[in-house]
């Protein structure tokens, strides 16, 4: 165990953790951030997506030892922000949700995309979300959700 200091959802945090353990377990088990889901545990499905220094990562593949002094953002920290509300409402309005298990990861991937590219093309949306698996929707309405968020969120991204 060692002391890990990092920034989590805009707050500084310092705790004892095994540097070899998964960021996913630290977030879910130790910090109770259950919007971060585990779907595969090997970086294939994106359900555990979080932002590390603004970059989309699969938290199941991130050892806790590598987040020292980094900024980690999860859906819990973003859902009350303008960005978070914009994408959440767009997803809800377009029917982008079915079982919802992949949805937090999809929202995180969408935020990562729109922050770097506020007006993405269809192909750019597909590439940005290609690390996130969904078994219910066929992705069609998720794409429409991202497009709606881009349209509505003019200026905030």
């Amino acid at each position, binding site marked *: 165990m060692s002391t890990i200091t990092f920034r989590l959802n805009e707050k500084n945090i310092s705790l004892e953790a095994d540097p070899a353990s998964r960021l996913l377990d630290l977030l879910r088990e130790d910090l109770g951030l259950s919007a971060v889901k585990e779907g595969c545990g090997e970086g294939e499905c994106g359900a555990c997506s979080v932002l590390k220094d603004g970059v989309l990562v699969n938290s199941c593949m991130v050892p806790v030892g590598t987040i020292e002094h980094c900024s980690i953002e999860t859906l819990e920290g973003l859902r009350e922000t303008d960005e978070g509300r914009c994408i959440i409402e767009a997803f809800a309005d377009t029917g982008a949700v079915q*079982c919802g298990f992949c949805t937090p990861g999809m929202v995180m991937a969408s935020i990562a995309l729109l922050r770097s590219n506020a007006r993405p093309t269809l192909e750019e949306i597909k590439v940005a979300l290609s690390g996130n*698996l*969904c078994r219910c929707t066929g*992705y069609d309405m998720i794409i429409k959700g991202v497009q709606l968020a881009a349209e509505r969120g003019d200026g905030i991204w």
Partner: protein
Amino acid sequence: MITEKTFRNDGYAKVTGRAAYADDISFAGTLHMVPVYSDLIAANNVVVDASEAMKVPGCIRVLTAKDVPGTTCFGQIEQDYPMLITDTIRSWGDVVALVIAETRTIALEASELVVVHGDPVKPVLTIEDALKPYARVVPSYGDSNIVVHHRMRHGDPEAMFDQCELIIEEDFETQIIEQGYMEPEAAICVPRHDGVIEIYGSMQHPFSTRRFTGALLGEPLSNIEVYTIAVGGGFGGKDDTAAIVCARAALGARLLSRPVKMTYSREWSMRESYKRHPYKLHYKVGVTSEGQILAVKTQMYADSGAYLSVTPWVTWRSTAQCFGPYSIEHVHADVYGVATNNVFTGAMRGFGSPQVNFATEQLIDMIAQRLNVHPLGIRRINMVKQGSSTVTGQVLDQHTVSMEEVMNSTVHEIGYRKKYDRCSHGVSETDELYGIGLSISYRGASLGAEGMDFCSAIINGQYDGSILLETGIHENGQGSESVMMIVLAEELGIQLKRIRYRRSSTSTIPDSGTTVATRGTIMGSSSVVIAAKNFKELLATHLAERLKCTPEEVTFHNDKIWGLTFAQSLTWEEAMKELFLQRVTPYAFGTFKAPDVSWDDTVGQGNAYFTYVYSCQAAEVSVNKKTGKIKLLNVVASHDIGKAINRAMVLGQIYGGVTQGIGMALSEEIKREDGKITTLNFDTYKIPRITDLPEMTGIIVENSDPQSLTGAKGIGEPALELIAPAIANAVYNATGIRCTSLPLSIDPQELK
């Protein structure tokens, strides 16, 4: 159509990440359970040694079959599935022990130390081996590896083949498919102070879960309360296995008097859970020179794996719907379920139809090509029409038979006729070959003659005018709760915001069967209509005097309850208060019983289903001449679902189902070596990604169905069951190569 906008009562909870799935729920003092497997595929005299595991600090207990107070073996049809194996291992998915520890990490560590001994026997791993005369009998019951044999004897095809201009014989094969729900199985079970075990699990059938748990614990059903929580997808796959995960955690909770959580890794889920049956199908089809299909003989073999699960029901549907939506006078079918030592197979969206459709909708195109008739023409000649008789002898006169209308809508939308003439047939000036293909199907809605079919709903009016609704249909992610709310709002003429969908438990609503078989909307919403009728009658009786009219004259609309004039009306707040003052409980119960069906199993004839969903899907592909890679360019899917209650969700079901069908067509396959599954996660089991998908267009055809009290049928399974043959036909039209096995693949050598 009732509503245009997307309505989901659980939408915000899910998009904000607040919805709690099984593994998100915690209770103080929770213990963690993990399963222990063995590398044995088939073995006798199995002994489990947990002595080393028990020495790990924090390991509380290792449970084996000896610890089970009830029965270890259970199942929906045959009670043959060992929730913990006793002394015989029959597949690589069998669980030999359960390790319980203070933390999951400790439980995993201890589980590595459990030692399993047994006398291995040579596993039976193929249908061919299982059917050999002296093959070892795999199941614990019966004396044969043929665990079910359904027959259809409709006319006399053998006598008719002589009169046919064309006879086609062909073999087809379909692969093993994993449901691939994004949330692996999980359960947390809590022993309540009053003796009840509470179950919060990721499963799609609370009542089945309760039966499995009751069997394992040896306790009455009333001792077990299964709650509805958010479920991360099921697609048929969260019945048996998911129920068993719940039952195991409940066993731990009961024996240790503490909450126990069991969360599956993806690898365990892939290893242990049942899959879609792989089929081997043989067809002989006789056709006249005009394209009339006169006679069909078919034999199908489905690998049931080591346990029966619902194999008899899956293969029954393959029998009742053994040759597509066509009216054919002479059909004989023999459909077999065969036991092997493979990981078992069971329910998955489509349930015995995708396999059959893959064969029959290609056969139709093969007939068209051989007779030089247009594929649409062959379909038009043979398809069921109003008043037609099906291959089971059922006359289709109780609903609108819209097969042709549905096919025409797809043909028109995608521009099939012009594009069909542009197909490459193996010849193109560029590296890309182009093809378009289509397929049609009808699907019996709900269970049909498979089983008892009824569903209940409860409406519970509150003092302040708000209303609680619950039904026996389970929310697996498909949006059933929202559909029930929309239907109730329509029936009572009230605003949606008055209604709170109460997530029922097995102790609050009667067993309404499992949420499978495209029955959620048709059965659930019809039960809501009946409960609403009873509710309105109760209210009318007791409010008529206040409204200065007779009970028959009371009406419900515009979020109010009305007498004969504008002056005579009550708000719901006033009305509910009035009932309470009269000491009348504004509460209603309703049960919808499915219309009658019939079945004679000796000849496979009868009214198999009370109604049918009609579907047509078309796909455009390009196939690269150098690599053989198949690229999907466009998909159109039309379905007559009776009536769309929540339009956006219907389209979501269509796109999701088509996408699962695309996975079946092009990328998904559970692979095995010596009985061990080698595709245990999404790196090797390839479900479609967003970048794999083409443009999709869903078309909703609405011919209100009189067999359903809302007019609505369903869409879950029809959406999946026919895109694979449409793509196969498109690939043929692009390349001239007929793919008779799944997933489709083209060897570029053959294109040169």
